[in-house]
């Protein structure tokens, strides 16, 4: 069972690179140029994972501040904080950044860091492709933000894209989007999409070919399962967006007519292509969140996950169904009623496997010894908030209801409940849970509780009222509104909530800096949570090679087997 039996039968060239930089990596003090050298040349999945996460957290702060400016503008009627044109750029950049430069790289980062550790491998299947994926994502991000200085708009140099994150045509055509900002949007997203495809391909190949002996598919950790299904969705759902963006560039630069209504092109085709990508995309973002919950909840309930096969089957089912619900974003364009019925029914169907997942998490907690540490608190808040998000999602899936509330703040509130109340909360849970693994240090529990409560109160304060103003008819993407519609109070409350969320994120950043920077911060040891999956079997932080000996696995909870040789899991599998 020695390391020579490692399934990767080839000594790859990247191993030599690792040998070359090991002296730098293992010394405590890195000079700036050495650190830069390591960052630029590394193909190590752990470093790339952390680079993904750090880059996306920076984008998260930027896009969060954009949201704050928008809430400031909308806090009072007839606001004068920003001009209408700036407001359009703000919501476009906020949405685009959050989806393509925060959500996608965050999930790539968690997948990169955790999957090889969880399946007992020493790296991803294609380490250099992995590095390529990161750098092309970052390049895409820079390209998008370069539009602030380089995207000569109508008023001369420097304007950001202002066409909304789904960039409906024909607004994006040359005739209506003069200047270069729309091109920066298109190319930036196209580049970061290539990065996502590279990382998805890598995840699939890693899970298929790199599992340690005994790690059958049925024993794989839930997070790995979710990321596997997620990567399939990325492979299938992302190319439609790239294709549509290539068509858009052909329209803008070679005078093609794909979305040019003056020459017989269709205004609806872009919407179809975009949402064929766009709806699976929200599941692509939420699957890693599901994966994090499925790892964290069992550990802090001291119970194995309830109904593992059902959880996997539900994930696969959501993956399939999510490919056939896209037109529920388009009920208002006037599809024929057969299409409306099909897409409404398909949307309802997603509720079934999602419900299975929520019930299984609850069943995992039921009868368990619950430990209310910060990661668990974020998971519990996720359950409440994602349930609300799911219910409003089903409401919006009903065609006539959607006709009433389409493009209102009700929709904004709904998808922020999924993406902030769901995705971001799960990411916070994952950060608190795996930070000790990546750094060897604990995050402060006191600051963590402050972070959690401020975030939860702030989030709900912001987004619950937006449901109400949406129902009262406030459309999304308006830069201001007059007195007397009954929207004033709710908008003010929503903006107050933002202050709490900003404070929460500041505490989170402070917590991380404290833990990393202070010499007396609490050390975690290798396995602070008394966990059961393989990533906790190695040191914290893991060495370059992850495992001294490639482990052999006999059940879905290999560390439980090690810690309880008298009562191992494999006896019951």
């Amino acid at each position: 069972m020695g390391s020579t039996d490692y399934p990767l039968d080839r000594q790859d060239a990247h191993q030599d690179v690792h040998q070359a930089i090991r002296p730098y990596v293992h010394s405590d003090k890195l000079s700036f140029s050495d650190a830069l050298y390591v960052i630029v040349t590394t193909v190590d999945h752990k470093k790339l994972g952390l680079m993904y996460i750090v880059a996306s957290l920076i984008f998260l702060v930027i896009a969060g501040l954009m949201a704050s400016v928008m809430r400031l503008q909308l806090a009072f009627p007839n606001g004068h904080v920003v001009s209408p044109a700036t407001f359009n750029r703000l919501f476009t950049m906020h949405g685009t950044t959050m989806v393509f430069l925060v959500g996608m790289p965050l999930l790539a980062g968690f997948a990169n860091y955790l999957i090889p550790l969880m399946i007992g491998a020493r790296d991803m299947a294609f380490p250099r492709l992995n590095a390529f994926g990161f750098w092309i994502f970052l390049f895409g991000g820079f390209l998008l933000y370069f539009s602030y200085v380089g995207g000569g708009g109508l008023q001369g140099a420097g304007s950001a894209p202002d066409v909304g994150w789904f960039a409906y045509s024909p607004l994006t055509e040359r005739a209506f989007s003069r200047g270069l900002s729309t091109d920066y949007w298109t190319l930036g997203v196209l580049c970061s999409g290539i990065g996502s495809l590279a990382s998805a391909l890598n995840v699939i190949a890693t899970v298929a070919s790199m599992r340690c002996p005994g790690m059958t598919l049925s024993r794989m950790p839930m997070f790995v399962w979710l990321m596997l299904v997620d990567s399939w969705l990325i492979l299938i759902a992302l190319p439609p967006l790239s294709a549509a963006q290539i068509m858009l560039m052909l329209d803008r630069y070679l005078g093609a007519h794909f979305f040019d209504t003056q020459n017989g092109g269709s205004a609806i085709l872009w919407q179809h292509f975009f949402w064929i990508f766009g709806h699976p995309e929200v599941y692509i973002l939420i699957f890693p969140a599901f994966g994090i919950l499925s790892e964290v909840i069992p550990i802090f309930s001291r119970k194995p996950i309830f109904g593992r096969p059902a959880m996997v089957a539900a994930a696969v089912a959501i993956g399939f169904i999510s490919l056939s619900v896209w037109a529920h974003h388009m009920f208002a364009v006037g599809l024929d009623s057969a299409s409306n019925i099909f897409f409404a029914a398909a949307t309802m169907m997603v509720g079934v496997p999602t419900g299975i997942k929520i019930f299984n998490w609850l069943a995992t907690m039921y009868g368990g010894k619950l430990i209310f540490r910060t990661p668990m608190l974020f998971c519990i808040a996720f359950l409440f908030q994602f349930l609300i998000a799911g219910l409003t999602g089903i409401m919006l899936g009903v065609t006539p209801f959607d006709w009433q509330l389409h493009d209102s703040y009700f929709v904004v509130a709904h998808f922020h409940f999924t993406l902030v109340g769901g995705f971001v909360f799960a990411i916070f849970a994952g950060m608190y849970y795996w930070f000790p693994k990546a750094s060897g240090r604990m995050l402060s529990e006191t600051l963590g509780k402050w972070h959690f409560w401020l975030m939860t109160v702030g989030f709900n304060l912001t987004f619950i009222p937006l449901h109400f103003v949406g129902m009262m008819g406030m459309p999304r993407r308006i830069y201001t509104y007059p007195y007397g519609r009954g929207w004033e109070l709710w908008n003010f409350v929503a903006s107050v909530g933002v202050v709490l969320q900003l404070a929460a994120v500041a505490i989170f950043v402070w917590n991380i800096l404290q833990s990393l920077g202070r010499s007396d911060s609490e050390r975690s040891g290798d396995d602070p949570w008394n966990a059961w999956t393989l990533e906790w079997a190695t040191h914290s932080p893991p060495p370059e090679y992850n495992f001294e000996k490639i482990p052999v696995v006999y059940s879905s909870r290999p560390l439980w087997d090690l810690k309880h040789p008298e009562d191992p899991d494999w006896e019951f599998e």
Partner: protein
Amino acid sequence: MASVSSALVPPVIDPAQWKLPDRGIIGIACLIITESALFSIFVVGYIFYIGKSLNGPYPKDVLHFPVLGTIALLSSSVTIVIAERALEHGRRALFQLWWIVTILLGAFFLGSTAMEWHQLIVNEHLTISTNLFGTTFYSLVGLHASHVIVGLLFLLLVGAVTLFGFPIETQKRRVMFLSWYWHFVDVVWIIVFTVVYIVGR
């Protein structure tokens, strides 16, 4: 059932018997799947706009079956398999011969596409901006042709490696992945041909 007294002995898993699929096969398969998704959107775009051009020239007036090019491309899928077989049996000269034939057939296809485009642009005055037919035709056929170009570049790379005497025998896997990609480009052409030259006319 669980015994509480003593440690149990786990079932034996022999790591030597632990076989998983080759990562390269998975990688190239994923690439082909994601490329298929990309192509299918362009094909849908083409089908969606059939017959919706506001002005001529129309497909039935200007398009001719690219018979020779199609034959060349489809044959190249056969010759690349013959080349692979030769490599399998260690017959280097035979491999080189069939590899060069494959490159020539691919290049012939590309040339015939270039001739067709030249004829359409110069004689029929059909460009990508003329009408919806031009838009969808050039983008779909052009997307395929760009994949042929990429394939040809890699074929040339392998050809250069073997002609300059580097050992190709150690690269059988990579040659296989390249031939998978080449077959994929072929299959896509069958679909493009059907949609553009049969359904679209």
